[in-house]
């Protein structure tokens, strides 16, 4: 193609070629992911609902993440209250800390941080579990027994994530606001009643509902990427490790990008 260039030479044509190949690889990946999602959702309609798996996944993703979600929420609320106080006290507006904390949490931080925590915990676990099954040929075994991996493995995780994430995000918001309130009243000397009344007057249903919508979308992202990467794992133990770390990175990046897109569209 580029005539007489040496194999390791970086030429413009090769750079462009690599960029083009990367772009098409990305397109192919997105397409496969979309088809994967469609196939999984289709299982809901022709009898693929496995109640026991859904419940156990829901317990794992939801109940299991409560600890990490509430811990993150407490510290996020404290930091917001502290930094907000430092910023606002210069204008004598320190009683707006309540609004600042509540709006930041419900609109952005609760859905995003919850999703990131759940990705780190449940997303990696999903990818590792399914990846391990893939490299030890258990998926092929299921296939040969005419057991559908999509409805047995993927759909329960998807449904669990869709229901668990908004609930976790709501817990995050409430815990963060409560922590900020306790901190503000006892350490910063704010008026507790003014704090809560500020929170109530500045947070509208739209803020809460858009935050919850984001959480649902993030749940879909986490479950799909984790299971997709898991099922596509090749190459033994190292492959499982690779799949797991790719899952966490891709899901996290998609969560942050998706957060921007949804904020721009919905607010």
């Amino acid at each position, binding site marked *: 193609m580029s005539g007489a260039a040496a194999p390791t030479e970086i030429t413009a044509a090769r750079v462009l070629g690599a960029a083009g190949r990367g772009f098409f690889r990305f397109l192919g990946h997105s397409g496969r992911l979309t088809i994967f999602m469609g196939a999984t959702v289709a299982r809901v309609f022709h009898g693929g609902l496995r109640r026991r798996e859904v*419940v156990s996944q829901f*317990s794992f993703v939801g109940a299991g993440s409560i600890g990490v979600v509430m811990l993150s929420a407490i510290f996020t609320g404290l930091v917001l209250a502290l930094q907000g106080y430092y910023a606002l006290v210069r204008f004598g507006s320190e009683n707006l800390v309540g609004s600042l904390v509540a709006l930041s949490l419900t609109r952005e931080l609760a859905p995003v941080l919850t999703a990131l925590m759940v990705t780190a915990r449940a997303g990696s676990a999903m990818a590792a579990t399914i990846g391990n099954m893939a490299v030890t040929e258990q998926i092929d075994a299921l296939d040969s027994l005419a057991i559908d991996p999509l409805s047995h493995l993927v759909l329960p995780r998807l449904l669990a994530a869709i229901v668990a994430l908004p609930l976790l995000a*709501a817990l995050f918001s*409430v815990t963060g606001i409560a922590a900020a309130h306790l901190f503000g009243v006892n350490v910063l000397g704010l008026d507790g009643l003014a704090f809560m009344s500020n929170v109530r007057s500045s947070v509208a249903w739209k803020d809460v509902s858009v935050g919850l919508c984001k959480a649902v979308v993030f749940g879909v992202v986490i479950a799909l990427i984790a299971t997709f990467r898991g099922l596509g794992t090749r190459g033994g133990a190292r492959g499982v490790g690779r799949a797991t770390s790719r899952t966490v990175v891709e899901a996290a990046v998609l969560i942050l990008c998706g957060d921007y897109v949804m904020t721009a569209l919905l607010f």
Partner: protein
Amino acid sequence: MFDYKRAEIAAGAFLVMGLAALAYLSLSIGGLKLRSRDSYRLRARFSNVGDLKLRAPVKVAGVTIGSVETIRLADYYAEVELAVDRSVQLPTDTIASIATAGLLGEAHVSLSPGAADRNLAAGARITRTEPALNVADLLGRYAFGNANQGAPAGAPDSGSPDSERRPASPRENR
């Protein structure tokens, strides 16, 4: 061996906790109203609603008794729909004005009840309205003299949709 019973209980407990947080967030903090039959609608037409926004409070004597539901344009006037608590009855000669909390605060609808015998029914129109006060306009009027003005700013008008006969800018004085 994997304990399914415990997973069920944990899932249930998480569901309850999550729904409770969701409910608290939506109802108490987000102000979502469950029973909308608790309020009735009133309509009012203003020549200028100023900075009035949707869900702005509707107050009588400074007490919030409702909120602004819709604001739209009708015949070059602003047609506003208010949701008022059912427990509050307003006489038919109530005056609706757009006030601000403090001089530059948030715009809200202030209702001043009159002394009529009959009350406004659901869906009725408040006929006496005053437009939003435009502070910049007021200052301009004082700066350029208001000898030919007649009624001072903010005087209530009678009957029909808000009629303002003041010229739009001070320079239109003669």
